């Protein structure tokens, strides 16, 4: 029973309760007896109060309380007899305070399980002794592992229904240990219980052969505190406290510690700015601290007068997180509307929110094996997948496996404002969405107006971007267009995708990420050529919407005409042409990631011009493109 702790009473010093907090997540369905288990924990620990118990008896049958109904909070849940949402339950024993995030087990509610597991330190996986570890149990364990939970418990329930068969339990126990091992979880224990009868939940139970502790005793003892303050310092700045009449130097940077230990005198680096300074004081409303560690909410004063704001991260020098615009991550998709590559979202990471584009969906995670499946065209509700994001500004992050705070993010739909994904950082890379500027480098203005330069040359600049399947005829049309433009007095230059890969992009392969990088480079070269006053004619397969969109954005931002041309040739026609024999190689499986065969081509939704090579000859096509260009330069 909960009583005020005696030491505080004796000394008269109020130290709170002196108990540690353990956040745990339970996963399983009503069939597994999960709600019954929670009800049993609360009932046997005498934490269900009389009026609640009365209500349970009213719902129950044969005078036994309906333990399961404790956790069904919403009317719809009671009416349908299911658990839909995460329910939080609280109980306290003389040794610990517990927060239970009770989550539904069904695959349909994966997002709710992710929500509950995101803050949990321990997961209790319900297993029906009659059925053993089924696919759903594996999913629960894998999800818990994925979300970084380092302590797992298998509550092997309904042991009474298998007559407390020890061999049955031992088989499940060893299978569970092996699964935990595979997930990298080193603390995994199994308990033979009957939630309905209360065996081995709070009190010891029927099985004479079981010599371990009851479940609650384990939950009270499991060590979740020893890694507190471990790892490098991470303090995301949340809020700047300006004392009412304070001088600038007295500003305090407030935030909740996300990693490491913070002490006055510590040298720190402020990211992404990169400035170095020293912590002069670690403050709270109750006075200065000698040291702080997660999850303390504190504020700090710094030795130097820096312009530090919300969204910046204080870190230990020498142990800096990665900084970059390209984020490889595992996400759980939480929205009813699907996610496709190329879409734009807002990304909230620690105290910083930036815009981001989904560069690619890289693979779909199979939760029962934790293996990668082939990338789907789109993510549906509850899918867990690896994706690559490009952000509009650099993100400073750790891998989620190293830090559950600085490695986590959410994605927000900017139209509906909904939280649409929970994300875990796998890797941060430098390359990404085109920066406004490279740090430390300023764009050198030549001082010459573009119009002035163009007028003196008697010409205009522009970029024509031809996209289409391999062997669709892009290069043939591009070469023809180059010729007629030059003959007509318009300087033009043909940027051939294959030629560029020999030099400029000689270091790149054909993965989605490398394709994006290749296009980024070509788009830049084209922009410079166009700015100089020539027509850049780029001929690239460029299969992804978002890559072509980047090229267009780059030109539009610079005020340069951009013509997207879709060379629409049916794949059968292109394959028949196949001048380089590539389709044949791809069909034979000797060429990976070949667009049209083993990699997708995203048809442009609104190209400026569509060329159907099966219906129009090359010179007619080139002539139409030339006319389109002229309309861009000299609108009617």
């Amino acid at each position, binding site marked *: *029973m909960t*009583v*005020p702790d005696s030491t505080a*009473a004796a000394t*008269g*010093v*109020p*130290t*709170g*309760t*002196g*108990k*540690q*907090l353990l956040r745990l997540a339970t996963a399983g369905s009503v069939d597994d007896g999960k709600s019954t288990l929670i009800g049993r924990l609360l009932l046997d620990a005498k934490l269900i*109060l009389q*009026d*609640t118990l009365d209500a349970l008896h009213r719902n129950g049958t044969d005078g036994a309380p309906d333990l399961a109904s404790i956790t*069904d*909070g*919403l*009317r*719809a849940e009671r009416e349908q007899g299911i658990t839909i*949402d995460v*329910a*939080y339950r609280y109980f*306290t024993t003389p040794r*610990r305070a517990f927060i239970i995030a009770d989550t539904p087990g069904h695959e349909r509610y994966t997002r709710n399980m*992710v*929500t509950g597991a*995101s*803050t949990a330190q321990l997961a209790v996986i319900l297993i029906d002794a009659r059925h053993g570890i089924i696919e759903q149990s594996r999913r629960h364990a894998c999800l818990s592992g994925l979300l970084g939970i380092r302590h797992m418990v298998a509550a092997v329930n309904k042991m009474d229904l298998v007559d407390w068969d020890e061999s049955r339990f031992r088989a499940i126990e060893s299978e569970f240990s092996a699964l935990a091992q595979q997930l990298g979880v080193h603390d995994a224990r199994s308990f033979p219980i009957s939630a309905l009868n209360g065996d081995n939940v709070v009190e010891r139970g029927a099985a004479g052969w079981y010599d371990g502790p009851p479940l609650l005793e384990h939950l009270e003892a499991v060590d979740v505190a020893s890694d*507190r*303050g471990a790892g490098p310092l991470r303090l995301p700045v*949340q*809020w700047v*406290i300006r004392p*009412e009449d304070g001088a600038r130097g007295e500003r305090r940077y*407030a*935030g*909740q510690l996300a990693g490491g*230990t913070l002490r006055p005198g510590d040298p720190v680096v402020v990211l992404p700015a990169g400035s170095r300074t020293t912590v002069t004081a670690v403050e709270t*409303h*109750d*006075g200065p*601290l*000698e*040291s702080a560690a997660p*999850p*303390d*909410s504190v504020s700090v004063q710094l030795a130097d007068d820096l312009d530090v704001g919300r969204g910046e991260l204080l870190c230990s020098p020498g142990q800096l997180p990665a900084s970059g615009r390209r984020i490889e991550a595992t996400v759980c998709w939480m929205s009813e509307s699907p996610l496709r590559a190329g879409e734009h979202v807002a990304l*909230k990471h620690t*105290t910083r929110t930036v815009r981001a584009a989904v560069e690619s969906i890289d693979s779909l995670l199979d939760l029962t094996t934790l293996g990668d499946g082939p990338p789907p065209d789109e993510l549906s509700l509850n899918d867990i997948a690896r994706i690559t994001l490009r952000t509009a500004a650099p993100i400073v992050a750790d891998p989620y496996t190293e830090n559950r705070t600085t490695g*986590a*993010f*959410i994605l*927000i739909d900017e139209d509906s*404002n*909904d*939280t649409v994904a*929970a994300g875990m950082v796998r890797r941060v890379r430098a390359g990404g969405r085109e920066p406004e500027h490279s740090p430390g480098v300023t764009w050198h203005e030549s001082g010459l107006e573009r119009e002035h330069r163009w007028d003196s040359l008697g010409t205009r600049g522009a970029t024509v971007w031809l996209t289409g399947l391999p062997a669709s005829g892009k290069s043939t049309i591009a070469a023809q267009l180059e010729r007629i433009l030059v003959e007509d007095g318009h300087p033009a230059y043909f940027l051939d995708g294959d030629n560029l890969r020999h030099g400029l992009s000689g270091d790149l392969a054909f993965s989605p990420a490398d394709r994006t990088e290749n296009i980024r480079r070509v788009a830049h070269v084209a922009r410079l050529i166009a700015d100089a006053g020539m027509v850049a004619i780029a001929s690239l397969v460029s299969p992804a919407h978002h890559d072509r969109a980047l090229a267009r954005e780059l030109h539009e931002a610079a005020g340069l005409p951009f013509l997207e041309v879709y060379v629409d040739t049916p794949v059968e026609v292109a394959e028949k042409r196949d001048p380089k024999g590539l389709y044949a190689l791809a069909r034979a499986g000797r060429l990976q990631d070949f667009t049209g065969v083993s990699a997708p081509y995203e048809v442009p939704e609104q190209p400026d011009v569509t060329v159907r090579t099966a219906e129009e000859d090359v010179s007619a096509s080139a002539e139409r493109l030339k006319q389109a260009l002229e309309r861009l330069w000299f609108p009617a």
Partner: protein
Amino acid sequence: MPDIVSGLIRASPSVSSKPDRLSVRLSCSRVTAPDHLHALESEAVHVFREVAAELERPVLLFSGGKDSIVLLRLAEKAFRPGRFPFPVMHVDTGHNFPEVLEYRDRRVEEIGERLIVAKVEDSIAAGRAREEWDASKPGSSRNRLQTVTLLDAIEHGRFDAAFGGARRDEERARAKERIFSFRDDFGQWDPRAQRPEVWNLYNGRIRRGEHVRVFPLSNWTELDIWHYIRQEELELPSIYFAHEREVFEHDGMLYAVSEYVEPSSEPFTESVRYRTVGDMTITGAVRSSATVVADVISEIAATRVTERGETRADDRTSEAAMEDRKRLGYF
């Protein structure tokens, strides 16, 4: 003003000075896990700062009850030595305990922040709400009307976030409510359309006209509140401690005799305290001899009835009473 001071009781008057507590915290913060109250405090402070940073015009709802008193202390922890980046607001039904109103004014003045009082009487006078209270009917109240006054005050102040002291342990529907709880432009809560709340990453984005109710105490229990009151030496309105009061019994609850309610049975004098603070018309007292916080904690630890079940007529109406009122925009 001695009459007001006498209405306040210092929690644990015998406790020693704050530096002792600090040194205790310092010595244990490195090696072991923090005390669970400390963890809850850190979480709540984080929530306060997130709202202040991400929303334009927050407001803190303050009733003078124990939960909102804790809320006010947590706001001090989050923003001192700076000012609160929001005002404090009380929705006043006109039926409050006088001890609580005195406390409210005194406390807000002490901390030097701005108090807004939104009155249900004004909503009735303006025809926005129709009187539902009848002094001759114990159990009748202006409780439901508060919602109208609250929503009007939020709209009038153009507030986009309102901090409240609700806890998830209070009631089954609350157990599933998020820390950031969204209200549409009619102030309504839709339990089926809640945003996932993962890690400590709160999404405070809203459209014009919508607002967020923010509950920094979501993960606190009634006992946590009392332990924190003791730890922080927080003053409380005197009605939280045992005192002699004239009461009458109605429908299994002890109602205070006051100008707002006509006794339905013979009044008698009893030593009581209040477990929750609402209107005098609907808040029940419990028999008690607890005069200091430690005694209250012992009594609560031993009780077998939930606080809302014991002392709030408004929540005993039906099993889904709270869920229904929340859907309409209640606190």
